[in-house]
């Protein structure tokens, strides 16, 4: 069935088709539509799951992990401040090695508080042990949830998976989405087998037990890391299987018109479709430009990036996030991945789309031009915030009303 769905609705459909058992929830904009949709299905007995509203995201993620540790399939969702409020438990659940899917609807972090998206929320969780899938379309949201369960529940992995979509640009945006049949999904995603780490009366199991000593701690943390690395291989198998079942690709990295491209955009999330559009227009103009978009951010597909970027002339890395005092996160991670290469492409770092700020076609074209000049001259420009003169004038206007003197005290 092909239907117009919002990204939030697509996430709910993913959970429904995965036949989840348990839905610990808590409302937050722009995620709330997901839990409202699921709550209605549960009330109408269209989804045989238990839904519990917790009093915070911290408790919500705790309940999610505890239920997964008991042995049921769990889905939960949050956004932004909620993800950060739950952060302590994200690390815990990964340490418990409990498989589940958490959908995060990205939204810029406070302060100042705002509603529109960027990726600082989800990137704050990048070291938590949650694997991360990043979506660019509503279809990918549904597909990502299904893939997420296969990945999380694979016995070689057994880590929680975070599926990310952008607030507003996907969460509230309708696009045609193919909703697979329940039978199709069942053929792809078998029922959850909790294995031996689960609670049953009459069988003593202690989970999430404290350790003493750095050696034991190192072992367990590193085991989670090894499982995450193993997830690269497992993801390849699962995405190939996904294509067989559904006819759609969900590769670790989307490659868009990259074959002969000498300059590439690298970015993630829904704004990357704007880059696709820009690539098409630049190709119309005869420029050899392409796009690489990681769907899999954890584990980080380093080798795939090396393979795809080896021999290219230049890359514009567009980060919709900002690591304060460092710069763009994707830029830093990509630079680290490419360091072993003998012939590395020129990397130019751009930070754009913070708090949902638009990235215009003209800006994509200008970035390609800057990268081309950097390649020609060998002079790499410093990182740039995508921010225009008119935006500055607008801020100045606001500041005049807000008062203040504009001098360092």
């Amino acid at each position, binding site marked *: 069935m092909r239907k117009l769905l919002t990204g939030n609705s697509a996430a709910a459909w993913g959970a429904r088709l995965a036949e989840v*058992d*348990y839905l*610990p929830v808590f409302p937050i904009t722009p995620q709330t539509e997901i839990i409202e949709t699921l709550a209605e299905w549960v009330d109408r007995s269209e989804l*045989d*799951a*238990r839904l*519990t509203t*917790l*009093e*915070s995201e*911290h*408790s*919500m993620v*705790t*309940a*999610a*992990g*505890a*239920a*997964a*540790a*008991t*042995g*049921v399939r*769990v889905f939960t969702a949050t956004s932004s401040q909620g993800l950060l409020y739950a952060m*302590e*438990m994200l690390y*815990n659940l990964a340490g418990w090695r409990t498989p589940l899917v958490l959908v995060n609807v990205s939204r810029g972090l406070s302060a100042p508080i705002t509603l529109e998206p960027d990726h600082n929320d989800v990137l704050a969780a990048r070291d938590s042990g949650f694997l991360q899938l990043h979506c660019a379309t509503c279809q990918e949201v549904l597909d990502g949830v299904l893939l997420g369960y296969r990945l999380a529940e694979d016995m070689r992995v057994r880590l929680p998976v975070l599926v990310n979509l952008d607030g507003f640009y996907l969460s509230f945006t309708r696009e045609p989405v193919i909703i697979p049949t329940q039978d199709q999904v069942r053929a792809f995603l078998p029922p959850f087998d909790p294995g031996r780490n689960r*609670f*049953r*009366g*009459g*069988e*003593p*199991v*202690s*989970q*999430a*037990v*404290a*350790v*003493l000593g750095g050696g*034991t701690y190192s072992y367990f943390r590193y085991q989670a890391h090894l499982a995450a690395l193993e997830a690269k291989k497992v993801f390849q198998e699962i995405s190939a299987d996904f294509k067989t079942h559904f006819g759609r690709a969900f590769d670790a990295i989307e490659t868009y018109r990259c074959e002969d491209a000498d300059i590439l955009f690298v970015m993630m999330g829904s704004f990357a479709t704007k880059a696709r559009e820009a690539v098409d227009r630049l190709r119309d103009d005869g420029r050899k430009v392409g796009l690489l978009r990681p769907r899999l951010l954890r584990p980080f597909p380093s080798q795939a990036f090396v393979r795809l970027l080896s021999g290219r002339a230049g890359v514009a890395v567009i980060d919709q996030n900002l690591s304060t005092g460092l710069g763009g996160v994707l830029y830093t991670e990509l630079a680290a991945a490419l360091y072993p290469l003998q012939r590395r492409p020129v990397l130019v770092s751009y930070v754009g789309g913070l708090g949902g700020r638009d990235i215009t076609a003209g800006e994509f074209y200008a970035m390609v031009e800057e990268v081309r000049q950097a390649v020609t001259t060998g002079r790499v420009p410093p990182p740039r915030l995508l921010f225009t003169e008119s935006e500055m004038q607008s801020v100045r206007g606001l500041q005049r009303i807000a008062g203040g003197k504009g001098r360092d005290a």
Partner: protein
Amino acid sequence: MSEQDVARTGKKRRQSPLGAGTPMCAGCGGLQALHQIYDLVGDKTVFVNAAGCMTLLSIYPFTPFPGSWLYTAMACAPAGAQGVRDALDVLLSKGRIRPEQDQLPVVLTGDGSAYGMGLSATSAAIDRGLDFLYICYDNEGYGNTGHQYSAATPTGARTATSRVDGYSGVKKDLFTIWSAHRPAYVATAIGTEPADLARKVKKALSLRGPRLLLVLAPCPTGWGFEPARMVEIGKLAVRTGIWPLKEYSDGAVQHTMVPSKRVAVEDYLHLQGRFRHLFVPVRNDDKLAALQLQVDDYWSHID
């Protein structure tokens, strides 16, 4: 009798279900109560723990529990119990486990979590009517970090963060806060009144819904007394009226042990290092009288 006697003779008749060998302090009043409670709740339980002294009951690969255990974090043990209960209900209703594989989620936290960081999660678990048992071992301070004052610390007690004049606040009335949620059952208890404790645990087990036990845990380390005096101090906490034993159910509060003639509060205080400053170098009559008055005032409202 030698170390080997117990193992060699094989003539043990009754061994405590909860295993020995934990790192709790010698003379821990909380552990003494937990043994009695565990004897009754049994091993078809998942103990869901919040950060506190008893987090160290289970240190990999050692656990005293013959049943199950899940450590969560300081703020959220009741939410963990919610997840376990909900998951078991789903498994039961979908026929994926047999009824005899069901378990009771039991939250186990100290006062630091119960009176403070975890209170929101507890309140919400009661709102939701969660079918669980909550055991708070109340040693009146953040014991596991060296006994700083918490919202459970009594007036005047010296702690690591009130070293000079003692705690200036008043012990929070968690029993009343919990009861105000109108859960199935709330009780105060202490391990040194075993009959009262056992009756309350049995009563809690006979009910469904949120059931909460607030257990005073005399703490040799944090309160400053010889471990051997743990039981004596626990009994004095009751006989002085400082720790009223009571229960809430069906909207009413009942006192379960009313001391016929209350022992003077200072008989309890002077045995503990945390109150020593009220007696030496000079006796602080005003403060001692004020502490006695707190207790008298409480009991003047009780029939």
